[in-house]
């Protein structure tokens, strides 16, 4: 049953693909599923076109399955593998007073966070 825009009618079918990856099967209408995921719509004509193109492009992507010994390599996310110049995140037990006040006073209106007024009009 679909109750809202983001509630998916996804069949969660596990099966063993090649190389023992566990995969989900996406719903029958992949395009509709993706539209909800990325918050973008396609027109009816575009939907027909993209179905064909997605098939072709996924076939291209599947070329990677033919590469032998690929699992021996670690994923390369960044070509230079430089350490991050950002500081390491520090965790605290509690939020500070300012954030606490904001959280307590925030209102949710139609999905938007309505912050308390800080100026007089």
């Amino acid at each position, binding site marked *: 049953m679909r109750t809202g825009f983001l509630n998916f009618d996804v069949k969660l079918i596990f099966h063993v693909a090649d190389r023992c990856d566990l995969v989900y099967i996406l719903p029958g209408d992949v395009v509709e599923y993706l539209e909800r995921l990325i918050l973008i719509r396609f027109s009816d004509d575009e939907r027909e076109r993209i179905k064909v193109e997605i098939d072709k492009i996924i076939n*291209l992507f599947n070329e990677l399955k033919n590469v032998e010994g*690929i699992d021996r390599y670690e994923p390369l996310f960044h070509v230079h593998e430089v350490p991050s110049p950002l500081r390491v995140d520090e965790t605290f037990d509690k939020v500070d007073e300012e954030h606490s006040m904001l959280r307590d006073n925030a209102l949710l209106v*139609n999905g938007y966070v309505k912050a308390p007024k800080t100026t007089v009009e």
Partner: protein
Amino acid sequence: MSYKYISMPVHRLIEEFSSDVHKVFEYIDSIYDRIHRVESRVRAFITIVPKEQVYSYVENLIRRVRSTYPLPRLFGVIVGVKDNISTRGIRTTCGSRMLENYIPPYDATTIEKLRNVGMVIHGKTNMDEFAMGSTTETSAFYPTRNPWSLERVPGGSSGGSGAALAAGEASVALGSDTGGSIRNPAAYTMVYGLKPTYGLVSRYGLIAYASSMDQIGPMARNTLDLALTLTAISGHDPRDSTSLPMQPVDYVELLNELLHREPRLKIGILKELFEGSDDEVRKTVYSSVDNLCAYHECVEVSMPYTKEAVAAYYIIAMAEASSNLSRFDGVRYGLKVPVENRSWIDAYTEVRTRGFGYEVRKRIALGAYVLSMGYRDMYYIRALRFRRMLKENLNSIFSKVDVVVSPTMPIPPPKLGEFFEDPVKIYLADVSTVIANLVGYPAISIPAGFWNGLPAGLQIMSKSLSEPILLYLSAQLEERTKLRDLIAEV
């Protein structure tokens, strides 16, 4: 009106202006006159800065530099800038309706650097929307046409920059290259284009497509101008966390030093990339390779999995694009739509549906697909594993040869709309160029010659930070072929 400045190389322009600084106005006039004559047919620009504004900028520049001698190194040289590089006060659309009215409040680092050496920005060049394309046909505004053959595309995504150079509408240009977007249009418009080593040129202010592969680079009508522009824009930038920590390098000096010493190099001819090219392209590019092999040692090298490299590239690029373009929501960036009495999801969806063109929406969708649960390991992570494998394969090749060569593009410039029905065909045409982006290595496209009036380019690729070697080989080849400073009769 004097047209002597239209095809004049940058190093000669500098000499002219240093003898009489006011010649720069004659030069500006001739460039704008050329734009007036050809732009309606070529459509290389999205935004052209009014001539009066350029005059005023240059007058201010002259006032500022009057007390300093010598003039800034590239004083007065007009540069066309791809429309995904932020320019303060000049509209930057990224070829998209999403940013149709966006005027950046700041300059990208590369633009700051160009301004520091006295260069003058006169326009923002057309491009595929968000750099997603290889033909400049996905621009939300209009396609750019190839000045050498107006019914054909100029390549992409920096097609406007290539076309502006080939049509004589700019003296140098900036492009950006995520999977070949500088080299592809360079090959198709008979100009020189360099994708620098990843991290050599700051990405601060470049509107992101696929951050781990995006790189800004120069395009020019000869090698020396390419070296001059690269020197101006390269160097460490603390505002870009992926910028390489290195001292400024003068590529002109290094190029001259290499041309003086003339070292003999070992060149690897990439067998698979020649075999996979059209006959005409292969023959044209081979003649250029013969020129190089007359002096250097050439050997054949093999790199399997070229089609797989295209697959890995598109998986990674689309995945990163899907994440990067989530910022275009109408709140942070993008179109503004009425939000009263509407849910956030509804308003957000409208902004993204109206703002992005079909190709961009398709790539975002596919990016989300390869990152979705279950498919991430099958596609995205596997592509990243392939990326490391490719890098190790290439390093093994570069332990035996100094550079590798191939056709930049395996096919001649397509006609407009030729690949509309089958996008995979045009994706596969990126086979030679995506490799350098996947591993972060530099690569250059050099004019190789014409076949039936259509340009073909030779690509040379090497290890990280080997730009001086690429420029050296380019200059050597240019000297032999004399394919320099060419302007198409539009």
